[in-house]
């Protein structure tokens, strides 16, 4: 009955996976793996919205020795990008028309707009507006023409426009093209914003196809083309993960098959041995999809490595149901190994379940995949194998001879006294605690991608600065208060932080309404004695009629102010709208961006002086979270071990439980020591590697303990199981993602050490 129920469940999983699993829709966003922020005061929605906007930005760099050829190529690339419909916005050549539009967007509010210097001078009442006008006409560089004389005679609006941020100082506009010159090369920049998420695989595919097309059409001929954006990283991470899945999955399966071909005759049945692995993966993916709606690519890479573990149940059964034992039927064979299999499975599940106890999405996903995969593999063996793999498997004669000899040597080894086992574990524990150097850094989740890092470096050298990962989040209850707060913050940062770098905020482009009205009043006050001013200017041949439009502008109806909504619709506003987060839960938010700022400690300190300003360092926050979770798991871990020990005592007795648990503990501690000596540091994934080491290698100890007459079969199964696990985790330890690499290495070493220690520590039940 159970057999058929299990079949039904597997079929349901199969249908669910077929209908819901789309390899092109796997999650690739690194931040989706990380815990949600626990700080209730932090508007995570605001931060996520800003991060999402930033992640869509892509910059194309067209470079060459010949500036004209580079410009021509860049023009063609721009047209191609426009036609692709892959981007919502593309910014490239700055036309005179565009510059005029910016000018005209501010123009209606010119009476309200002052540069910081003019505002300060007017506040101190030492500005001679008449003198300014005369000097402007006299000066060779003042650009006072007829139109300006009428609309902006005192050049206050011009000064405001010139005080607007200039952006990166390496960037010049030549013939309208944003250009950087470096080492004899001309670099042209095209900025674009993707229309979809960079983590969407269909967007990634279209992007890479577009890039390939551009390279094919326009590359060479002395011109290089680079692109830079989150989409590049997401794409490379995805390709890397897919490669690793193929390598680990393919390698593990190939390894298993080769081993079995080497060990057994009658190879036709060998494919059945892979059934628990297939069912395990199917159930793991199906249940994970159901629980989480989607699976992360990194979790899938991890899941594939479990092939080497889930095959263990099939290995133990097939060894028990072989000519190495004297069992008459497949059911008898199963009965012999079932207790050990069950205990082994439960201990593994407990180990993986500790991952799920955290609020860490990555670990919860991995935990569900692991538990479902292992339980499914176990049930497949327990419920189906006696029926579908009922005939006895034949181990090759040569293997039997060798394994018999090995088994008798190992079984006959003198076992270490209990006190020595305990002492060794304690000593290693003390050494590890002394040596341990945790490194909780988000970088462990990022794969090393040298080519992209090179492009990164190119951008840094070109720009001379680089956007900081950190930023400041400013909030207030109204948009006007927000702009005021932000302006004060910026002024303070520019004074307090003296070691270079720059800051950008919306208030650099748009004064608050309060400041606009104040500015207007300041100018109006200086024009109080307009008759005197007109008389003075008449003496220089400038008739009063010329100024009448401007002077009358102050008296015309209610003053217009430029609102934030109006600004965001303007050409300048569109360039900076990612810095405006708008109203989120009754508060308004904006972002102050940092570029090339090194003295973050002072930035943080300065930000702390302002209400409604939060210093955000996502990477630091995540790294801190990783550290927090690591410490929590480290504190819970001893209790997990105690729990397992108590469970073991019921089955193995006090001494037996010490041996069965002592071997994996010793293996884990030795593995940890090796990791600390080899790598010099450890992180949360090392800790999980240790937990899983214990969870897996305890199987070996249990099987050795449970061995009775079938010693050879037990040791062959342990050997095969170990080989497959070492292969899978050995391949995982080659991953380019540091977290997976550390995890794989810890497990690999732990399993190897457990092979060494188990024969010296664990006694079989009969002895």
């Amino acid at each position, binding site marked *: 009955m159970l057999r058929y129920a299990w079949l039904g469940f597997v079929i349901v999983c199969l249908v669910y996976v077929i209908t819901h699993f789309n390899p092109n829709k796997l999650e690739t966003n690194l931040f989706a793996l990380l815990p949600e922020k626990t700080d209730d005061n932090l508007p995570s929605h605001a931060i996520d919205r800003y991060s999402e906007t930033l992640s869509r930005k892509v910059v194309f760099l067209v470079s060459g020795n010949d500036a004209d050829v580079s410009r021509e190529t860049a023009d063609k690339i721009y047209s191609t990008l426009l036609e692709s419909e892959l981007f919502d916005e593309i910014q490239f050549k*700055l036309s*005179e028309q*565009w*510059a*005029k539009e*910016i*000018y005209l967007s*501010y123009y209606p509010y010119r009476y309200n707009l002052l540069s910081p210097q003019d505002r300060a001078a007017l506040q101190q009442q030492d500005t001679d507006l008449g003198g300014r006008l*005369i*000097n402007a*006409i*006299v*000066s*060779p*560089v*003042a*650009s006072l*023409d*007829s*139109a*300006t*004389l*009428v609309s902006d005679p005192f050049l206050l609006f*011009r000064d405001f*426009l*010139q005080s*607007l941020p*200039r952006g990166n*100082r390496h*960037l*010049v*506009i*030549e*013939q*309208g093209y944003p250009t950087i010159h470096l080492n004899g090369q001309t670099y042209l920049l095209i900025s674009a914003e993707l229309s979809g998420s960079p983590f969407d695989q269909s967007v990634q595919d279209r992007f890479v196809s577009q890039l390939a097309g551009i390279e094919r059409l326009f590359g060479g001929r002395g011109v290089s083309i680079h692109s830079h954006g989150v989409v590049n990283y997401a794409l490379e991470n995805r390709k890397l993960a897919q490669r690793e899945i193929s390598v680990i999955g393919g390698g593990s399966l190939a390894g298993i098959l080769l081993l079995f071909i080497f060990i057994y005759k009658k190879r036709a049945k060998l494919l059945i041995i892979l059934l628990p692995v297939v069912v395990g993966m199917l159930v793991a993916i199906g249940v994970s999809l159901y629980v989480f709606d989607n699976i992360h690519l990194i979790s899938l890479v991890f899941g594939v490595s479990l092939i080497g573990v889930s095959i263990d149940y099939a290995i133990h059964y097939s060894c028990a149901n072989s000519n190495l034992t004297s069992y008459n039927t497949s059911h008898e064979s199963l009965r012999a190994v079932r207790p050990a299999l069950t205990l082994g499975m439960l201990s593994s599940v407990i180990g993986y379940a500790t991952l799920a106890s955290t609020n860490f999405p990555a670990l919860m996903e991995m935990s569900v995949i692991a538990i479902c995969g292992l339980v499914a593999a176990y049930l497949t063996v327990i419920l189906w194998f006696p029926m579908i793999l009922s005939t006895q498997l034949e181990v090759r004669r040569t293997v039997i001879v060798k394994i018999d000899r090995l088994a008798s040597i190992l079984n006959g080894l003198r076992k270490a006294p209990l006190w020595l086992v305990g002492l060794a574990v304690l000593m290693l524990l003390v050494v590890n605690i002394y040596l341990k150097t945790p490194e909780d850094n988000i970088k462990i989740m990022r794969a090393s991608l040298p080519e992209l890092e090179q492009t990164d470096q190119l951008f840094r050298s070109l720009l001379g600065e680089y956007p900081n990962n950190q930023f400041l989040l400013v909030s207030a209850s109204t948009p006007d208060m927000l702009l005021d707060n932000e302006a004060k913050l910026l002024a303070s940062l520019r004074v307090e932080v003296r070691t270079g770098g720059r800051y950008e905020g919306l208030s650099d482009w748009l004064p608050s309404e309060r400041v606009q009205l104040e500015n207007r009043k300041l100018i109006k006050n200086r024009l109080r004695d307009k008759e005197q001013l007109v008389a003075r200017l008449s003496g*220089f*041949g*400038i*008739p009063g009629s*010329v100024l009448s439009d401007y002077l009358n502008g102050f008296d015309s109806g209610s003053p217009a102010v430029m609102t934030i909504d109006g600004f965001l619709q303007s050409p*300048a506003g569109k360039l900076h709208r990612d810095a405006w987060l708008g109203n989120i839960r009754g508060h308004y938010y904006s972002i102050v961006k940092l570029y090339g700022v090194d003295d973050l400690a002072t930035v943080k300190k300065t930000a702390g002086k302002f209400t409604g300003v939060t210093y955000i360092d996502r990477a630091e926050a995540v790294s801190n979270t990783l550290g927090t979770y690591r410490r929590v798991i480290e504190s819970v871990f001893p209790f997990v071990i105690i729990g397992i020990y108590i469970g073991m005592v019921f089955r193995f007795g006090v001494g037996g439980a010490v041996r069965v648990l002592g071997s994996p503990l010793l293996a884990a501690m030795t593995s940890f020591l090796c990791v600390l000596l080899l790598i010099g540091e450890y992180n949360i994934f090392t800790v999980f590697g240790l937990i899983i080491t214990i969870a897996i290698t305890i199987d070996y100890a249990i099987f050795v303990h449970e061995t009775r007459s079938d010693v050879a079969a037990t040791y062959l199964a342990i050997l095969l199981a170990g080989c497959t696990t070492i292969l899978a985790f050995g391949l995982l330890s080659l991953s380019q993602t540091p977290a997976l690499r550390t995890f794989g290495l810890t497990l690999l070493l732990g399993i190897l050490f457990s092979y060494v220690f188990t024969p010296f520590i664990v006694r079989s039940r009969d002895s």
Partner: protein
Amino acid sequence: MKWLSAWRFGIMVVLVSLNFLSTTVTAAAPETRPSMIEQLLSKPFIKADFRKERILKVLSRPFLTEGKILFDEDRGVVWVTEKPVKDVVLITENAVRQLDTQGKLSSTINGSPVVEAISKMFLAIMSLDKSRILSVFDIESRDTGSTGFGLVLVPKEEGLRSFISRIHLTGNTRIEQIDVFEKSGDLTRLYISNEIRDRSQLSHDDKALLARL
């Protein structure tokens, strides 16, 4: 935006540079046009007097200024207005600075890529290096009849051309008059006289001003 305004005022810097296209060429028989261009663009001066008429459409009469110009080939230009008001502007490759009546720095515009680009172009013209001028303008020559010979400079770049339609340089054996025709219909007319090319003839005050570049 910085874009438009910077271009606008940057253009004026260019205009200034063209004031220095002055040569001394001995009278000779009628020559071919290319060689006239070479002749006119041959010798910059170190100091000259100027009279400038700023003809704005909205004004009923030109705005007149007089003063002197000091030029250092390696460092830049000092533009000294003496009438109707005193005004001193220092123009270098990277900045434009204004001095107040006491000779103290009253304003500076620097760090603007546009200012830098315009200043570099301006100083190239000051150097009277034909190839450098040709990188910015197309040069045409024209006869002005008995008054001499002229050059017409037409900006190559769209940005410059949106503000200046053309520049006329007129002179007999040297540049005597520069007319800048703006797209807006305004006009600047500059008359150059009393050029000095020998540094030893500069006054102490002139040298002090040049030293401030």
